[in-house]
């Protein structure tokens, strides 16, 4: 059943450009994949480590800026991409060391502050970042000679990276290390008493989360061919966090559903509804009230409940008929 569902999902994703005729909508789906990678990365901390970060836009943005700057000022997309990954990992390590001095609200405030510092640098260090004008990437890369300029080609590139992210997350959360991480979320004191290095587990999880945030940032820079301080803003971090919470923390499908919801509302619904922000807010409120565990686990719960009600009704009718 599970394998069939995965096969169907892969088939659907692989054939998107065939049944979505418009390049615009293929681009929207590419955006969903990019934001889903960021949401999945953030979910490693929020859902599996119990650490709520409001600074992930900073990690996303560092990689975006790094790759854009390197493509413009150095040579070669591959070198720029690898250097951007290395640079963003170094930044993630510093981020992690500073923010893991606290947990709970303290952790949230430190990540928020670090994210804002990065946004300030992007906005004010005009010589490096171009300030408000940002940095334009002249063209998309051509890995193995394949042009990613078109919406379909870029979609497949984004899909490959997304599937790699998804697979790595699935392996990670079901591994012994993933179990250790979840243990530090639920009972950090007990985990220490059982012989675990809680800080180091969280640090490594942060690196993993930051790595995929950076990959999402690099994809975004290539997709958009432009980076500006807006991608490091608090609103971006908050949106990523809302994707995770709305979709369902601590699940693999939740952040993807959350990313799809936000991107569709921003890019599609906004064309038809002037006050789309209001609608998105109302949807979030409805999710919190009716599905506090998130869209994916909440839908599964409601589905099970509906199935049980239907079966109960059928059983009652059979019992009635039997009595008659």
């Amino acid at each position, binding site marked *: 059943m599970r394998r069939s569902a995965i096969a169907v999902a892969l088939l659907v994703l692989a054939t998107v450009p065939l049944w979505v005729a418009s390049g615009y909508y293929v681009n929207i789906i590419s955006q969903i994949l990019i934001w889903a990678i960021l949401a999945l990365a953030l979910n490693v901390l929020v859902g599996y480590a119990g650490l709520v970060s409001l600074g992930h836009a900073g990690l996303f943005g560092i990689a975006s800026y790094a790759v854009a700057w390197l493509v413009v000022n150095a040579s070669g997309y591959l070198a720029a991409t690898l250097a951007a990954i290395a640079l963003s990992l170094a930044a993630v390590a510093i981020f992690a060391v500073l923010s893991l001095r606290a947990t709970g609200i303290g952790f949230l405030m430190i990540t928020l502050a670090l994210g804002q510092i990065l946004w300030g640098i992007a906005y004010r260090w005009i010589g490096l970042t171009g300030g408000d004008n940002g940095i334009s990437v002249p063209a998309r890369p051509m890995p193995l000679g394949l042009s990613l300029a078109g919406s379909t080609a870029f979609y497949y590139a984004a899909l490959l990276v997304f599937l790699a992210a998804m697979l790595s997350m699935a*392996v*990670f959360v*079901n*591994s*012994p*290390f*993933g*179990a*250790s991480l*979840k*243990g530090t979320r*639920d*009972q950090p*004191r*007990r*985990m*220490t*008493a*059982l*012989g*675990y*290095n*809680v800080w180091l587990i969280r640090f490594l999880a942060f690196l*993993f989360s930051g790595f995929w945030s950076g990959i999402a940032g690099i994809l975004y820079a290539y997709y958009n061919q432009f980076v500006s301080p807006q991608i490091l803003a608090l609103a971006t971090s908050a949106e990523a966090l809302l994707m995770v919470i709305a979709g369902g923390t601590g699940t693999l499908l939740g952040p993807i559903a959350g990313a799809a919801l936000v991107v569709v509302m921003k890019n599609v619904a906004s064309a038809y509804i002037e006050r789309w922000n209001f609608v998105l807010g109302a949807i979030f409120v409805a999710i919190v009230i009716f599905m506090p565990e998130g869209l994916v686990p909440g839908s599964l719960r409601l589905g099970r409940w509906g199935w049980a009600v239907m079966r109960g009704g059928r059983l009652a009718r059979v019992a009635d008929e039997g009595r008659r």
Partner: protein
Amino acid sequence: MTALEIRGLAKSFGGLRVTADLDFAVAPGERRLIIGPNGAGKTTLFNLITGEIKPNAGTIRLFGRDITAVPCRHRPHLGLARTYQIITLFPRDSLLRNVMLSLLGLSSLRWNPFLRLDRQHALIAQARDALARVGLAALADRPLAQTSYGERRRVEIAMALAQRPKVLLLDEPFAGLSVDERADVRRLLLAIPRDITLVMIEHDMDVALDLAERISLMYFGEIIVEGSRAEVVAHPRTKEIYLGE
């Protein structure tokens, strides 16, 4: 050599002195009971031994090795395990997964992000064995949230025993249990082999006195009476402080 030796241990929280110049030694294989009124510093003593809080002065030795400066997370690797007065388990997981986490704590496997935990058959078998030792084999796959208080107490003990400790600290293992559950846990503790030294805090004198060979009475952070069951029970300070006579 002693299993556990404490010399001159002192701990204060601000102006509040919790333990003061405390000396304490437990022989290998011994069953030691620590009694004392609420606030005497018994659980704080356990927290000091496990390294969850740092002492202001004094030394703690485990089988001759000075572990005073050893971080809390390293002490289980040296053979020290504990249970908690307030049950501290992993509520979202099954009983089996709780014990597996305990086993993983001492295994280098805990750092592996590539293997599937549910395919670690040796680890799973060890966890099932540990649960069988405490009579919970049949409930291994049940979520912790669907178990009784007494079953959770036994899971705590299974987790501690799974780590094959040399010294096991039991913080009120009978707290909150029914008469039948107490009898179960008592049988369980009596079955622990002698190569594990037991130090137990307990208020239930009827059950605890039966288990212990030597008893230490703590009062305001000091051990004021120590000896065999008969000696401690007969001591006038015990009657005055603990039994209220």
